[in-house]
């Protein structure tokens, strides 16, 4: 049995999304910029996909800019805010300590270009506090960028509250919704979101495609020169098969959201209840305020990579925030941000479920995981000390 429990890394393309893509790889291969009928057929597909996606997000079609994925959208959003802020001498950005590196590294670069960045605490529960966002906003704040849901621990952030307070203070608000889109309801108007990033492959769409939503009134500087595509802001022939796949996947995910979420949350809770029985383990992040599919644990006394390798041998695909899996010396910045000591953060495990996981698979994880943890602990000098109570 192979259990794919790494849906936060990427998901399988759904049959619906694949079916939506195929015509644009075969008979409808025209370039949407071409004048002839083949091109116009493709242009119709592109416009339709954009309109359907906009509809699902509560946006207008002209506010959707297709990108290569979430990382590009995050980069672009921060550039937009920096460019608009600079016109009014605003160079301060508010974010959190546990954003994705697509945001954090872009903010680092922005700092080199004169930005001042405030990274807010996300506390032990892994949730930023709106009152702390409000307190951090200054006269010269150009942007608040806070992820919709954390990619490692799955905690949901109070997006509507933050959106409201940013709108009241007249500050641009961007949210990296890569992990949330297709899994929780999003309404860019109701939630006062100015900019939003998402990527199709996190909700059973194809890889290499995503989008930036940017509210109509916000001036958008050109991101990629060389063409009239994306309202002249991002040149380059559109990846129409992927765009069609993304539109179909997003619509499908949103249509099935309620039923899927009920089922997936129940499986997740079963997993959390069972795994939490392992001694010296804990669930990371707030138990309630989380995505339906993500559960992240730490097991004291062991290191995550060995855990992943043994799980893989038992047919279970998962991920970890340990240093060894990232190729750096430091464990996950997310786990450090919620206050875990380095020692413990090395022993993390993320299990992320999706629409295709079954109860039988969860039972397999529940049965397989404890003896693997036990086996690694048996040979761990750290566990030896924990057992002795040192």
């Amino acid at each position, binding site marked *: 049995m192979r259990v794919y429990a790494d849906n936060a890394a990427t998901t399988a393309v759904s049959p619906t999304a694949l079916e939506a893509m195929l015509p644009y790889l075969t008979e409808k291969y025209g370039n949407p910029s071409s004048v002839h009928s083949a091109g116009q057929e493709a242009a119709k597909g592109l416009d339709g996909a954009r309109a359907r996606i906009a509809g699902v997000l509560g946006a207008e079609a002209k506010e959707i800019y297709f990108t290569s994925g979430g990382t590009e959208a995050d980069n672009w959003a921060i550039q937009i805010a920096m460019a608009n802020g600079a016109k009014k001498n605003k160079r301060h950005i508010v974010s959190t300590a546990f954003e994705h590196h697509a945001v954090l590294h872009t903010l680092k670069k922005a700092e080199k270009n004169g930005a001042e960045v405030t990274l807010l605490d996300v506390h032990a529960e892994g949730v930023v506090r709106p009152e702390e966002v409000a307190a951090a906003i200054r006269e010269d704040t150009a942007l608040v960028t806070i992820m919709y849901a954390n990619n490692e621990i799955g905690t949901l952030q109070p997006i509507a509250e933050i959106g409201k307070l940013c709108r009241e203070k007249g500050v641009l608000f961007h949210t990296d919704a890569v992990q949330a889109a297709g899994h929780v309801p999003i309404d860019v108007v109701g939630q006062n979101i100015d900019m939003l990033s998402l990527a199709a492959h996190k909700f059973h769409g194809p890889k290499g495609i995503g989008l930036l939503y940017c509210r109509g009134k916000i001036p958008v500087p050109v991101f990629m020169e060389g063409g009239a595509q994306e309202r002249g802001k991002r040149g380059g022939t559109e990846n129409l098969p992927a765009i069609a796949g993304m539109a179909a996947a997003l619509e499908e995910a949103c249509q099935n959201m309620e039923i899927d979420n009920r089922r997936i949350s129940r499986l997740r809770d079963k997993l959390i209840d069972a795994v939490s029985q392992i001694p010296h383990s804990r669930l990371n992040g707030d138990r309630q305020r989380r995505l339906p599919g993500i559960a992240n644990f730490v097991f004291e*006394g*062991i*290191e*995550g*990579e*060995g855990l992943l*390798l*043994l799980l893989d*041998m038992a047919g279970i695909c998962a991920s970890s925030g*340990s*240093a*060894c*899996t990232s*190729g750096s*010396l430091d*464990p996950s910045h997310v786990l450090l941000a919620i206050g875990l*000591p*380095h*020692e413990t953060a*090395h022993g993390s495990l993320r299990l992320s479920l999706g629409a295709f996981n079954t109860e039988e698979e969860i039972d397999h994880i529940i049965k397989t995981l404890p003896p693997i943890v036990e086996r690694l602990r*048996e*040979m*761990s*000098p*750290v*566990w*030896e000390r924990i057992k002795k109570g040192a």
Partner: protein
Amino acid sequence: MAYSGAVMDHFANPRNVGTIDDADGVGEVGNAKCGDIMKIYLKIDGNKIQDVKFNTFGCGAAIATSSMATELIKGKSVEDALNLTNKAVIEALDGLPPQKIHCSVLAEEAVKAAIADYYQKNGIAIPEDLKQCTSCCGDCTLH
């Protein structure tokens, strides 16, 4: 990153796992903050390593290099064990991914630390090059 078959074998079926209660030398290197700790136990008789066991907290490569290092010194003289290099461990494992080289360094250091402990317990002067490094392995660029 892909591990060789030998690394996966020594990770999945590690040799010489455990502890020795009446060990003649015990060496521990690394620290939990860095994500790697290796502890090696030696039973030495007549200058020969009669038995060796290890406990390791760390990644797949850390466990595999510990296992291989213990295999390479088992039954050898103390001097031979002291000459074990991280390169010999890497070769015996058919190579390691670049970011995992430090695991082999830790394995070499763990053996040396255990022998240093043995020397100390037996009143033998500890050579200068057996002094231990205390920072995170991988911090330096010596290996």
